[in-house]
Structure formats: C-alpha cells, structure tokens
C-alpha cells in the first residue's frame, strides 16, 4: 500500500491477524429445514416445477454503500437452477422450469396469480410463527396454540390446480436468495475498525429460502432457511456448495 506509514501498516496487519479468528467464528452457514407436520407423500419420479428464482446480490463498497451486482445475481441464479436440477435428478425426479409469458408486463400467467399471491402470505405466516422472523431479540415470539410446535401445517388449497395442470407437475419449488458481500476495500475498513475500535463486522451476509409445495394437495411440505456470513457469494464454487446445502433436505 503506497503512502502508508510503517506504523499504520503494522497496525493494519495486526488487525488482520486479530480479525481472522474473529471472522472464523462468524464464518458459518446454518440451515433450518422444516417438514409438513402430517408427513410428506413421496411420489415415484416426481416432476418438480421450479418457479423463477428470486435472487439479488449486493456489493458493499468501501464506504458501506450497497450496490446491486447484476453479474453476481445472474451467476447465483444459474447456480441455483443447476443445483436444483442436479438434486432433483439425484432423487429420480425431473425438474421443469416455469416459463415467463412473452411480451407481457405480468411476469406470470394470470391464472397462476392466486397461488403466487397466497404463497407470499402463507410464507409470511411460516416465517413469523415457525422461523420467528421479526421478533426482536429477547422478546417473546408470537405463537399459535392452534398449531403444533414443530412441523408445517399450511396449504395453498386449490389455488395450485392451474400450476399442476399447466405443467403436469407434482411439486412446485420456490427459491429466494439474498446476499451482500463486502469488496476488498470494505474488508480493509472492517479490519481498521476492528483495530481502532474493536468493532467486528461480518464481511458478508446471505439468506436463502427454499419451499416445496405439493401441487396435488396444495400443502407446503418443506421449507429450508439458510443463513450465513463470510462466504464469498461472488464465488461460484462457494455458492454451489451452499445451494446444495439449502436443497440437501428436500423430501423427495
């Protein structure tokens, strides 16, 4: 680093050395899968409809400004699709892809809207009552005495019928992935912040969510939530490994 004094260089190097164990501690990826409380009906050679994955990756610049990275998002999207196809194939199934209508403002067929809209709200209930999203640390999480403490008991009802009919599919797989990763400048800032103030800042954060819906019953039969920090989301290998982790417990 030209222009850096010996002292400063020393401090930053010291900070980096100190930072490694700190980051290693936070460098973890965890998954939290859940299955339908009533069990999952497994079919032979299932056809799985992959809904358009919802992916957004951000780069955190040196000053902490998040910049959307279309190139990272596109790569992560492809990785998710490839890993899904491989996972489903390994279970003896076939992955079919949702087709976006051509030349339309609406990204889905109008007949599929009721299912997709209900899915968002059902997912919201699952995140609130099962994954305890939105509950401040230390606060009591909301609960429903009308639901069992583990397992999923939610359905999209017969709204899924058009999806089943149009794609001749047994299941629908929904994937969401969000990540923010620091650039090298930001990583230096983190190191400096640690050296100067003792503040530890994760260099990346990512959240993945996968949901499997039975298109015969409408039941949400499986969800998995992946959360991780400090893995390089811009790196295809790491992204691939984590995607496999997200889909590992797919009940097919």
């Amino acid at each position: 680093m030209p222009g850096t004094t010996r002292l400063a260089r020393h401090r930053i190097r010291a900070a980096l050395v100190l930072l490694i164990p700190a980051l290693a501690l936070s460098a973890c990826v965890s998954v939290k899968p859940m299955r339908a409380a009533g069990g999952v009906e497994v079919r032979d050679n299932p056809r799985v409809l992959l809904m358009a994955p919802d992916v957004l990756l951000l780069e955190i610049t040196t000053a902490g400004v998040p910049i959307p990275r279309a190139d990272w998002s596109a790569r992560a999207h492809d990785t998710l699709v490839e890993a899904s196809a491989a996972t489903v194939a390994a279970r003896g199934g076939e992955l079919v892809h949702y087709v976006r209508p051509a030349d339309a403002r609406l990204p889905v067929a109008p007949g599929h809207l009721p299912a997709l809209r209900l899915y968002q709200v059902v997912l919201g209930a699952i995140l609130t009552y099962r994954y305890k999203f939105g509950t401040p640390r230390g606060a009591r999480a909301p609960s429903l005495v009308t639901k069992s403490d583990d397992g999923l008991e939610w359905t999209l009802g017969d709204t899924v019928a058009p999806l089943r009919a149009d794609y001749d599919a047994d299941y629908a797989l929904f994937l969401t992935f969000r990540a923010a990763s620091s650039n090298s400048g930001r990583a230096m800032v983190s190191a400096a912040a640690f050296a100067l103030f003792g503040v530890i800042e994760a260099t990346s954060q990512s959240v993945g969510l996968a949901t499997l819906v039975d298109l015969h019953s409408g039941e949400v039969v499986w969800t998995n939530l992946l959360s991780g920090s400090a893995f390089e989301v811009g790196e295809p290998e790491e992204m691939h490994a984590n995607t496999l982790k997200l889909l590992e417990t797919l009940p097919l």
Partner: protein
Amino acid sequence: MTAARCIPLLLAIVLATGCVSSRTIHPGEPRDIFGEYRVMSAAKWTRAGWRNMELWTVDGPQLQQLRLYADLEDGDSLYERPRQAVLVRPSVRKYRPKFHAQMLPHDVAELVSSTLVQWGAVEADATALRPARFGDRDGFRFDIRFVSQGGLVYRGLALGHINAEKRLHLILYLGTEAHYFPKFREEVEAILASVELTR
C-alpha cells in the same frame, strides 16, 4: 426479500398479536366478550385480547381472523385498542375512522371498509347490508371484499348491533378468499348464531 416485500395486509395485527400472550378458545366453552355478550365456538382458536376487542385466529391473522368488539362508544376506532387513542399521536389519530353515537348501519359498513383501507387494502367494499338478529335484538349484517397490497383477495362478513345507549357491538370475520375464509365460514356462522347478550 420476497416475503418482506410482500408484507401482507394485517401485518400490524400480527405484530400486535405478538405483544400479548396468546391464549386458547376451547371448543364448547362459552366465551364472555367484555361482559356484553357471550359466544360459543365448536372449534379451537388462538386468542389475543385488548380492552373492547378480541382477535381469534387458527392459521394466523394474515390468513383468517375473527374480531369481536364490544361496547364501542362515540370516538372509538376499530383498531386493536379501540379506546386507547392516548398512545397514538394526534396527527395520526385525526385520520382514523371512528364510530359515532348517531351512526346507522350504513355508516358502520363504511367505517369497516375505510378502516380496512387504512390497514392497507387497495380497495374495500361492504355489500349486501341487511337486517339481522344479534342475539335476541335487532342488528345488521353485511359482506366484505377487499384486495391486499399484494393483490390477494379477501372475503369477510360482519354482524353488528347498536344498543339503546348508542354503543356498538361488532363481530367481523375476515380471511383469504382462497381456502382460509371458507375454511371456517360454517364455524363462524354458528358463532354468530350463538350470540347471547348478557346485559
């Protein structure tokens, strides 16, 4: 993320529900609503309660909910704490739809649809307003349809009664048109038929 972007209508209610300990409505046990009326349910519900209002749900209030209001007086709203407007900034309180003692059933139907819009419905309609019995007294009923910000269609029904002291009792049942509203519709009709005024 996707779920956050499509925060469903009624999220405020979810958060509010989290603030109180949820309790159970047991099947077959009469439930007293603030000393004003009694109802009976054949199903089990998760209950949250505030002064003058109880909220019951099975699958989550975003999907279906039963609201039982009792003894609303002039100036009360249909929010979780109908009377505790003290906690709300005057600039916000000013815009809340409120019950007025001189209201007729048509005004109450408008009160409900406007409140739903304030909670985030894109459009809300109260239709088929008609006379009905609230326990052994004259009351009114109407149907509700609204669309959430996320585009999801909800259905609802309401049974109300304005008593001699010009206080409003109101039972609202709301849920997604697909699956969750119809799921407990029959059950709710039975609850409405079970209303017994206790004062």
